[in-house]
């Protein structure tokens, strides 16, 4: 079945929604509704386009000459593109439904522009993942960066504008690297089509150069360490449904680019590429979660978790690339499976968490967790969905985060068993890093949920908070259900993603699931059944409840009623655990790594070089004026004064000029 027209329909619907929002600037309420509904319809079309392709494993192609003679408009709807379309559409559906109520907050503050840029942003991402030509790829990439830039600065505050500028700078530094990579490929293939790039046989140093350019170019977009500086500033600045799209999907475009170039185009032929990806992934994961722990701002915290999860995804991708380079089909497929599965999962739960944070901000008008507390009672549905997201991102079974991290572990274990010493050494190191990351992530979300939703309210706003409107709940519920489904249905999802991985790695099919079990290649090594885990956990809960019921009589005898107290003092709101003191021990333990944040952050260096550049430009700028423009100006003035003498003002003189010219012309003609 050819579902490509549906992709086109989806893109057109987004664009239509964008322009409807733009045209309805004077009637924002209607504009918000148009943008949200068009976005939802477009997302449904996107899901309808990608799901059949994913299930059938079919690759669809379309090519036309396009308006430019140098670049054909080629669409290559392979399984990777289909997965990306699926992820984008799923998140876009949730975000668009959510926006129907959420954007009302911004009425009179540019809600119409928000609808415009949001839909354009999603449309450009959708177009970006399906095109198969470097020129169009870059066009859509820039569109995506620009549209999201405007979303970042939509608050118009000083902080947002600064964050937007940093984002703009790093995003464009990244796109320059990507352009260079494509240019190198273009030089050797003579065509801008990715298809022609795939057939190239580059020498190893050249291929490595292309890979490094693309890796750091796309890595800047993905927000991996050390190019992450923009992410914790830009994502919180955007409105929450846009943050969900940026953190949930846009950073995945970076991963998509790395896979597209490193794996699909270059074929991951060199071992150290994979190891580099693995190393950067490990560092991003550990540093990301550590920095997240130290945050008070709920959206900044979530943004740092994006850095962490990008790291986890890169671990999987890196392991897969090592597998491809060392010709281990099992490792290649497992690694890519883990990376892509986590890509999908992270999009879902990070989208959910940002929407949840957005709901809290919507009611409390603050992003500071120290001013929250007790929201679980006031906003129960938000709290429930947020809890599901928090459990998923902390990789608690049986939710989706657990499954993909389990696959990441399995790929790393597989890597540790075979290959050169370096590879066998790298495997366990990264496993340890992943383990630390997982532990810290749990701690971090205990803090987030505990400080924000449990305990006593710590501000009047928190005490008076109400549940958010239904569309916002619906958006979050959709993603929460997706978290559960992707976890419990692992045995159904894993083969589909394994198929994508084996298509990318060009290997035969690898068996990863049967009935309710998922396993890495063969069930004799190890196996996981999330439904079983779920039943056991539910059973454990049931046992507790039953035991509680049985001993109810005896317990009541020993129990005394009364207010809570602490160390002999009556309970005081100030005694509630806060975001700051919860993470304090960790901040002390990892002090050097926190200092590294300041030292390794490239943004001061970039800012410095930018100020040098502007200084140089401001030194250079008058040079042109002084040496070229001013002399020319003086010359023209002088010439003008000479000409002015001719211009006598007496029209009789002008008559003479005319006759003189006539006579001269006659003489010339006669001669």
């Amino acid at each position, binding site marked *: 079945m050819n579902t490509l027209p549906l992709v086109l329909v989806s893109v057109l619907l987004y664009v239509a929604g964008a322009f409807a929002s733009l045209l309805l600037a004077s009637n924002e309420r209607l504009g918000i509704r148009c943008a949200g509904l068009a976005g939802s319809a477009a997302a449904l079309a996107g899901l309808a386009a990608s799901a059949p392709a994913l299930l059938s494993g079919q690759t669809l192609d379309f090519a036309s000459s396009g308006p430019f003679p140098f670049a054909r408009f080629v669409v290559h709807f392979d399984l990777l593109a289909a997965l990306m379309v699926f992820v984008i559409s799923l998140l876009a559906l949730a975000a668009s439904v959510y926006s129907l109520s959420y954007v009302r907050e911004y009425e009179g503050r540019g809600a119409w522009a928000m609808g415009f840029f949001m839909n354009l942003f999603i449309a450009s991402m959708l177009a970006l993942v399906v095109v198969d030509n470097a020129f169009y790829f870059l066009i859509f990439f820039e569109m995506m960066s620009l549209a999201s830039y405007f979303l970042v600065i939509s608050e118009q505050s000083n902080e947002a504008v600064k964050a937007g500028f940093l984002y703009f700078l790093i995003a464009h530094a990244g796109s320059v690297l990507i352009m260079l990579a494509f240019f190198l490929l273009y030089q050797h293939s003579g065509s801008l089509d990715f298809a022609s790039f795939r057939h190239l046989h580059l020498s190893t140093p050249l291929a490595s150069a292309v890979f490094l350019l693309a890796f750091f170019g796309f890595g800047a977009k993905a927000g991996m360490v050390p190019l992450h500086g923009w992410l914790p500033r830009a994502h919180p600045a955007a409105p929450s449904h846009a943050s969900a799209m940026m953190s949930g999907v846009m950073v995945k475009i970076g991963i998509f680019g790395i896979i597209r170039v490193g794996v699909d185009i270059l074929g991951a032929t060199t071992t150290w590429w994979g190891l580099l990806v693995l190393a950067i992934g490990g560092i991003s994961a550990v540093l990301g979660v550590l920095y997240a722990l130290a945050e008070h701002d709920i959206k900044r915290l979530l943004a740092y978790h994006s850095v962490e999860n990008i790291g986890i995804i890169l671990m999987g991708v890196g392991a897969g690339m090592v597998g491809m380079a060392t010709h281990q089909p099992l490792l290649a497929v497992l690694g890519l499976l883990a990376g892509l599965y986590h890509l999908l999962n992270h999009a879902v739960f990070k989208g959910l968490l940002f929407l949840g944070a957005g709901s809290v901000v919507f009611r409390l008008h603050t992003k500071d967790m120290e001013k929250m507390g007790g929201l679980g009672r006031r906003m129960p549905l938000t709290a429930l969905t947020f809890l599901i997201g928090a459990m998923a991102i902390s990789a608690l079974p049986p939710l989706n985060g657990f499954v993909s991290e389990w696959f990441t572990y399995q790929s790393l274990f597989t890597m540790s068993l075979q290959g050169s010493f370096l590879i066998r050494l790298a495997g366990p190191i990264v496993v340890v890093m992943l383990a630390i990351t997982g532990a810290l992530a749990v701690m971090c979300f205990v803090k987030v949920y505990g400080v924000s939703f449990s305990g006593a309210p710590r501000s009047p706003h928190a005490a008076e908070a109400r549940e958010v409107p239904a569309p916002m709940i619906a958006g979050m519920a959709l993603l929460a259900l997706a978290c559960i489904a992707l976890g419990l249905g692992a045995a159904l999802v894993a083969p589909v993603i394994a198929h994508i991985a084996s298509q990318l790695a060009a290997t035969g099919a690898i068996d990863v699931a049967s009935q309710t079990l998922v396993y890495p290649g063969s069930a004799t090594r190890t196996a996981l059944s999330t439904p079983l885990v779920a039943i056991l956990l539910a059973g454990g809960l049931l046992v507790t409840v039953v035991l509680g019921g049985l001993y109810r009589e005896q317990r009541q005898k020993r129990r005394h009623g009364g207010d809570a107290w602490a160390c002999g003092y009556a309970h005081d709101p100030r005694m509630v655990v806060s975001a700051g003191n919860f993470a304090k021990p960790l901040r002390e333990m990892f002090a050097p790594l926190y200092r590294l944040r300041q030292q390794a952050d490239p943004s001061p260096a970039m800012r410095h070089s930018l100020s040098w550049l502007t200084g140089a430009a401001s030194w250079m700028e008058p040079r042109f004026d002084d040496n070229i423009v001013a002399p020319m100006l003086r010359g023209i003035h002088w010439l003008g004064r000479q000409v002015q003498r001719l211009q006598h003002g007496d029209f*009789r003189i002008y008559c003479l000029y005319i*006759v003189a010219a006539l006579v001269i012309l006659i003489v010339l003609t006669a001669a």
Partner: protein
Amino acid sequence: MTATLIVNNLAGLLFVTSLLVMGVSRPTASAVFYSLQSLVLVLIFVTLAATLGAGELYLWAASAFVTKVVLVPVIMYRALGKLQDPAASRPLIGPTGLCLAAAVIAVLSYLAVSTVKLAVVAELKPALAVSLGHFFLGLLCIVSQRNILKQIFGYCLMENGAHLTLALMANRAPELVEIGIATDAIFAVVIMTLVARQIFRTLQTLDVKQLTALKG
């Protein structure tokens, strides 16, 4: 006295009347002399018509009489009588200078015409020289006079010169051309008169030296 001699002499008279148009100080007097000059032009047409046997020229003469001898001078006389600006009446070049300049123009024109080799005008070369020189006399009038009303006459003189050239060299042209010339003369004069009156009403001057507001 042959017909060509008559034409040439009348052409010479044309020159003299032009000097009179330029030389007199009052614009109304110029109008009268212009009428006289046009009469001379009509006579030339009639003579030429008889000499060359060109029937069209009788028509030309008739229309020139109506427009140039009667209409234009009357319009000018009526219109200009009310406009008085003594400051502008004093010309830049006095009568002597004017005569000298006219002589120079006559000589130059004669030299220019002497190279023309056309059978039609072989006998009428002096008249042709006058017609060319007349054009430049008109220009001289425009350049030398400070009064913008006199400059309108300059235009009329140029127009008469051109008219004579046409009669000498293309006298078998259809009447349509003649109608064009006649209406051209009348409309141009009417428009320029209106502009002159508007200028006078706005600035209370006819002196061209004052009209320099557009100078850059």
